C-alpha cells in the first residue's frame, strides 16, 4: 500500500517542484542541468525504495508512476484547462522583430537565448529577421522568420 502512496506523492511533489522552478529549467538544459536531474533522480529513488529492495516494490512503483502518467494524459485530453495548469502555455517573446522585454524578463529568457534559437533553426543573425519567437510550454523557443528576405539578399538578387 505505501509504495503506491509514496509513488503518487513523489509524482505530484516532483511535478510541483519542476513546474515552480520554471520552464527555462527544462528547455535550456545545460550539461550541469543534466547532472542536476540525475541527482534529483537518485535522491528520489532512495526515498522511494527505502529499505525495501524487493522486485515487487520496484514493479509497484513503476506501475504506479506509469498509471498516474496515463491517467493525467487522459485528464489533459478531456479537459484543456487542466492541461494548461499542468504544462503551461506558449507565449510570444518577439513580435515582428521587437522583443517583448517584460515577458522575457519574467520568463527568464535573455535576448541571446532567442538569437541562439534563431541561429540554430534558421541561420538568422538579428532580431529584425524574426517575425515571431515563441516560448513553448515545454521550454523550447520556436522561431518564425520574417517573411521578407533580408535587404542585403534582395540587393544581391
Amino acid at each position: 500500500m505505501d509504495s503506491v502512496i509514496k509513488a503518487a506523492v513523489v509524482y505530484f511533489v516532483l511535478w510541483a517542484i519542476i513546474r515552480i522552478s520554471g520552464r527555462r529549467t527544462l528547455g535550456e538544459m545545460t550539461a550541469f542541468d543534466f547532472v542536476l536531474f540525475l541527482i534529483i533522480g537518485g535522491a528520489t529513488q532512495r526515498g522511494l525504495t527505502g529499505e525495501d529492495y524487493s522486485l515487487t516494490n520496484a514493479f509497484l512503483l513503476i506501475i504506479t508512476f506509469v498509471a498516474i502518467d496515463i491517467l493525467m494524459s487522459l485528464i489533459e485530453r478531456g479537459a484543456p484547462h487542466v492541461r494548461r495548469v499542468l504544462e503551461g502555455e506558449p507565449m510570444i517573446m518577439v513580435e515582428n522583430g521587437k522583443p517583448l522585454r517584460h515577458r522575457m524578463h519574467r520568463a527568464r529568457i535573455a535576448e541571446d537565448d532567442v538569437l541562439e534559437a534563431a541561429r540554430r533553426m534558421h541561420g538568422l543573425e538579428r532580431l529584425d529577421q524574426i517575425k515571431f519567437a515563441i516560448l513553448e510550454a515545454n521550454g523550447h523557443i520556436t522561431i518564425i522568420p520574417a517573411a521578407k528576405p533580408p535587404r542585403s539578399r534582395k540587393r544581391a538578387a
Partner: protein
Amino acid sequence: MQELQNRHHPIPEDMKFQALSWQIERGGWIVFGLIVVLALGGLFGHGAASNAVSGTAPLTVQYERFQRVTKQARFVVRFEGGRERQLTISEPFQLNYNVSSIEPRPIGSSSSPDGLNLTFAAADGPLTVVIWAHPHKFGVTKINIGSAGETRRLWSLVYP
C-alpha cells in the same frame, strides 16, 4: 501594459493566466528558500531547532526532536549510578522504533505494563546510556522514560 495584452496570432494567449503562473512561480521560490533556511536551522532534523533535552538531574534525556523515518536517531539518557539501575521506556518506543544498539548493554530487559524495562550493571557516579534506534513510523511519538520514580516525557516528530 501593452505587453500583457493577449495576442491571437500565431498562437492564442492568455496573459492573465501567464501572470498568475509567474506569481505562483515566485511564491514557490520563496517557499524553496524558506525550506532551505529552515533545514539549515534543523527543522527537519540535525540542527539547532532539533536538539532537545528533557529534564534535569537526576534524570536527563537528550534527543532529536525532529526525526525521519528509517534515519537512525540517538537518545542519550543520563541518570544517577549506584546499585543496579533500571530504566523504563514506554510502549510507543517499542512499537515505533527499531533499536539498533544500547550502550552500555543492559544486563537484563523485560516487559511491564509501563513498557520496556532495562536493567544496567551497578556503576559509580552518573550513568550515561546511549540508545540508537530507527523510527519506522511517521507522525508524532510521545515517549516516557523513567528511572527511580522520576519520569521524563519526550515528544518527537518523525517525518515520512
